[in-house]
């Protein structure tokens, strides 16, 4: 029987992240991993999370991989790159949240500089997820990392202007997030572009649902986004990011199950998102990272 190979009219934009060792994501002219159709010049990449404080919510089975490095973000980042082969580091400035340590913008900036010195891979920088405080912290950090071409998050429909302006002036890329709503995702990208922000510096996040916690829902939205992008919708033709680790390790099965359950949970979630078109997977457990990188390698070669 003749195989029908879909010919798409458009391509996903290519986003370059990092300055010392820049990596390219996106650029797809087809759906990932479909033999004969996929033209994906840049395979998906894996980022590992590093926090600016010891993550209290992490279970021991996850924490134990990093030992004392959990107390030093620079060491932690080095460990992730040198030992666990992370393609990028995702710095989460969790301690800046007012309900956590309420760390100042200046301190957050210093942590960021420390990591920039410690590793040469590209950085993703996320705040403490307190909208007001994040505006302050992110504006400062974007400036502190000027010229480093990082990927900053997270812009939402209700709170995108400060971050967009900061990224624009310091030359960073931005994560635009709409919680599993493709129409709002498109609208937000238009709003960000209206501020003269280049469309090829936007990465889409649809929120991430772990296995058993809304994965199918996010998966289908990501797939629809990718199909719309390939069909010529310029406001949805951006690469996508999934915060897999954070969500997988929030699942009660991962936290309380048998020793390897969390790792398997993270792998299953990550590989599903790979198939839905994710370009960056942000992950936690070194073993899950290594397995998923192997899978990417197998899928793409």
């Amino acid at each position, binding site marked *: 029987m003749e195989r029908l190979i879909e010919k798409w009219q458009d391509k996903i934009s290519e986003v370059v992240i990092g300055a010392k060792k820049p990596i390219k994501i996106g650029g797809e002219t087809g759906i990932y991993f479909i033999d004969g159709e996929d033209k994906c010049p840049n395979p998906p990449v894996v980022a590992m999370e590093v926090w600016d404080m010891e993550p209290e919510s992490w279970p021991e089975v996850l924490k134990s991989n990093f030992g004392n490095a959990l107390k030093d973000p620079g060491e932690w980042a080095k460990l992730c790159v040198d030992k666990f082969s992370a393609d990028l580091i995702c710095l989460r400035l969790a301690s800046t949240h007012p309900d956590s340590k309420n760390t100042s913008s200046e301190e957050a900036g210093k942590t960021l500089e420390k990591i920039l010195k410690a590793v040469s891979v590209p950085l993703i920088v996320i705040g403490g997820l307190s909208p007001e405080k994040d505006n302050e912290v992110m504006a400062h950090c974007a400036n502190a990392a000027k010229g480093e071409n990082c990927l900053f998050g997270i812009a939402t429909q209700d709170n995108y202007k400060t971050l967009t302006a900061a990224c624009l002036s310091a030359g960073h890329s931005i994560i635009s997030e709409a919680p599993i709503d*493709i*129409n*709002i995702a*498109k*609208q937000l990208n*238009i*709003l960000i*572009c209206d501020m003269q922000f280049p469309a090829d510096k936007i990465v889409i996040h649809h929120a991430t649902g772990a296995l058993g916690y809304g994965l199918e829902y996010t998966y289908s939205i990501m797939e629809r986004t990718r199909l*719309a992008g390939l069909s*010529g*919708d*310029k*406001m*949805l033709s951006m690469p996508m990011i999934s915060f897999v680790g954070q969500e997988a390790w929030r699942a009660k099965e991962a936290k309380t199950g048998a020793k390897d359950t969390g790792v398997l949970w993270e792998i299953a979630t990550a590989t599903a998102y790979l198939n839905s078109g994710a370009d960056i997977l942000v992950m936690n457990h070194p073993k899950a990272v290594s397995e998923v990188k192997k899978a990417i390698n197998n899928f793409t070669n």
Partner: protein
Amino acid sequence: MFLIGERINGMFKDVAKAIKEKDKSVIQGLALKQISCKANALDVNVGPASSNPKEAMEWLVKTIKEVTDISLAIDTTKQDVMELGLSLCKSKPIINSVNANEEKMNSLFSLAKKYNASIIGLTMDKAGIPKDSEGRMELAMKIVASCVEYGIDTNELYLDAVILPVNVAQSHAKEVLKTIRDSKMLADPAPKTVLGLSNVSQGSSAEYKSLINRTFLTMAIANGLDAAILDVTDKELMDSLITAELLMEKQLYCDSYLEAYRKK
């Protein structure tokens, strides 16, 4: 939807004057304006009053080519003017148009083959325009058969069911809509459908032309229209078009959907 800008036509006084005086800026301005309004191709017609249509066509095509390499729809009933226009095109041209006359089909489908052109087929013949959809479909079938005979992909064919002015032929609009719907069944891949939209309001009061155009366009889109020759610079018309396509799920909704379409 594939949009063919109608403005470079010698029926318009400014274009006729520009052709006569060889004023490139008027033509090039119209070309660029229509492209900025999202035209995918530009219709080029020297107009009925031209004393030397070959020379006028050559000048128009060359003048447009200086500022853009967008596809051109060469709009003429004269075989030699058509061939000259096609031979000068940089990008894939469109023949505007063939009808169901045997001789016309023979000569124009040969040209379509020779110049790898898309072709607009009017559902009319020597006897004129049929009054109902059945008559139009009969002629459409002849055109499709000829298209296949010349080895041209049926999706390179744009069937135009020929809308007549509503002020003189009110009963035709619904027949045209039915023809647009039914044309899809004539071949696989299905032929495309096109309308010379402004004809529907020809002769109507200037005040209502745009309203009549956009209302009919919306109805045609709902019936599956693929392309139109229209005034892309008419903002209200374009807003209706974008909204109709949105409602037909051709574009994903977002609050700024009009802007999103224009950003494409």
